[in-house]
């Protein structure tokens, strides 16, 4: 789908992120997020079993892997939406174990969701204003004294309008979020995440269900986050997007990190091909999973 999109500009890649050889769980020069032995099981299924992973600061990191690899579960664990069975993980030097989701968000780690969670019956502007941190008027006892929070609210509104203008949603500000298209909702969710000035933005499939015309604009916004000094970690299935904007790629399969590295090199890693196609993908077993073959063909075509 998005293979038809020609990039408007070649993004500047950040390099030299890791220490030593690139490989699963390799150390980074300046990690912002570190997870150790994070395990989450659902009954007999081990959804996530990450020995060690570090996310580099100030770069765009892609988390890829086949369906069911545990990417979203890892997201939920890291952001406090789910609790792991064991393990420790820290953000910016502060432990995140047993920290509830709203506190994780206040620390500056903001996430979006695979299925967009725009607040349907709030206006676009209210959606945005909800994203701001430390609002005086969000305390019940101060809320019915508008003179206490009016000034701050005006500042928040100005900031919201400025970000909306950047995302070209400013004309929609008084519409209910429910009236936006799927792609616009993705934009709104990303814009809303920026209201709190996060240090790490975690995007769960930002491109899923977005039409090609909007894809380019979304890509530019993700790159823009990096240029504004934020760290981005995103889950994505679209390999072209990953190669286009990611500085670093982490590959998950069956709950484990199987490969890490530069986006162009990591896709040639046999572990990645195994992850997508199975270790015996070249053995003739009569039927083939066409979707995965297509992904592989795309990868090979692209490398040539």
């Amino acid at each position, binding site marked *: 789908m998005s293979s038809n999109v020609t990039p408007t500009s070649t993004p500047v890649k950040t390099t030299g992120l890791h220490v030593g050889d690139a490989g699963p769980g390799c150390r980074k020069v300046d990690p912002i997020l570190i997870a150790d032995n994070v395990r989450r099981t659902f009954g007999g299924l081990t959804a996530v079993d990450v020995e060690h992973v570090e996310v580099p600061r100030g770069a765009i990191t892609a988390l890829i892997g086949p369906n069911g690899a545990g990417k979203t579960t890892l997201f939920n664990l890291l952001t406090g*939406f789910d609790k792991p069975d064991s393990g420790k993980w820290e953000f910016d030097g502060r432990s995140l174990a047993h920290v509830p989701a*709203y506190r994780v*968000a206040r620390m500056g780690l903001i996430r979006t*969701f695979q299925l967009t969670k725009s607040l*349907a019956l709030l206006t676009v502007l209210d959606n945005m204003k909800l994203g701001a941190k430390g609002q005086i008027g*969000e305390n*019940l006892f101060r809320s019915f004294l*508008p003179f206490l929070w009016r000034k701050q609210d005006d500042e928040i509104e100005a900031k919201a309008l400025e970000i909306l203008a950047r995302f070209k949603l400013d004309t929609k500000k008084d519409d209910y979020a429910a009236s936006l298209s799927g792609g616009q909702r993705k934009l709104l969710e990303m814009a809303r995440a920026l209201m709190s000035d996060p240090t790490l933005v975690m995007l769960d499939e930002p491109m899923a269900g977005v039409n090609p015309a909007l894809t380019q604009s979304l890509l530019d916004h993700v790159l823009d986050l990096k240029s504004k000094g934020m760290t981005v970690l995103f889950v994505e299935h679209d390999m072209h997007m990953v190669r286009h904007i990611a500085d670093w790629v982490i590959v998950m399969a069956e709950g484990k990190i199987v490969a890490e590295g530069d986006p162009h090199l990591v896709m040639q890693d046999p572990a990645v091909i195994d992850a997508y196609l199975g270790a015996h993908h070249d053995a003739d077993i009569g039927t083939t999973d066409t979707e995965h073959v297509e992904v592989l063909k795309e990868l090979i075509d692209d490398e040539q």
Partner: protein
Amino acid sequence: MIDWIQIFSNAAQELISPTTAAYALAALGLAIHFGYTGLLNFGQAGFMALGAYGYAISILSFGFPVWGAVLVGIGASVVFALILGIPTLRLRADYLAIVTIAAAEILRLTFTTNTFADITGSASGLQGYKGGFADLNPIPTGSYGFGPFTYNAYDWWIRIVGWSLVVILALVTWLIMRSPWGRVIKGIREDEDAVRALGKNVYSYKMQSLILGGVYGTLGGMIFILPRSVVPANYQTSLTFFVYAILLLGGAATILGPVIGSVIFWVLLSFFSGFVARAVEAGWLPFMSQVQAGQLRFILVGIAIMLIVIFRPQGIFGNKKELAFVK
């Protein structure tokens, strides 16, 4: 011959009756719970019962002054909200619905049981708690008003206090719902995980909402008992459903909706009951006895509410735009 003047004047009295005010307060509380926060509280009758019993018992058994009795009622409903909320607000909305409906019934049965008859008066309830409230009345004794709205000083005093409370709490609700606090609350109604991801303590906000709406119900419960006595049978689950009917009639996420909804509900109820009773007397409905006629009014009110919900699902004051999108 039917005495239409009498039917209409009885119905008109409901316009400003303290019962209408009490239901308006309870419905306003439910608007905070259900309309704005999305909490399915089916125990509003329990909050009202706590107001009624908290007030009456404080005065009768402990000799508290009026303000002390009001505080006891409010305190009891805060504790009740905490007991309901702590285990259930972390779970999905339907769990709260089940727990609240059961808790309200437990309260009612506790007030009904003979074991505590000394304090609660068991099934016959409580009376004789009105002295303190009547003493506060600044209106000199006598009869005031015109036409159907002629009442003695005490009756006017209840109406003034009841409707002032409705006006004040409606204003407070309006103020907080247009504040950033209200924005978070409405966000939680739409998607609480999204609000959590933006750094808001959703659990705490839901608890605040449950307590606040519950206190509205409790104050409604106190106004409710001032013109009558405290009878446990008044606090059945059907009370909660009448309050829900009022809320949906007026519009769930509105301020004026619950108030006007309550007025319409009680005027209609009074009109139908007066009309049906007299129609049976006059022999217009030969297939029906007086006892059956008493029940028919609820059927007619039910039909009226069904018609409104079918043809105006957002309620009288609700925003049609909010229904244009199916969630």
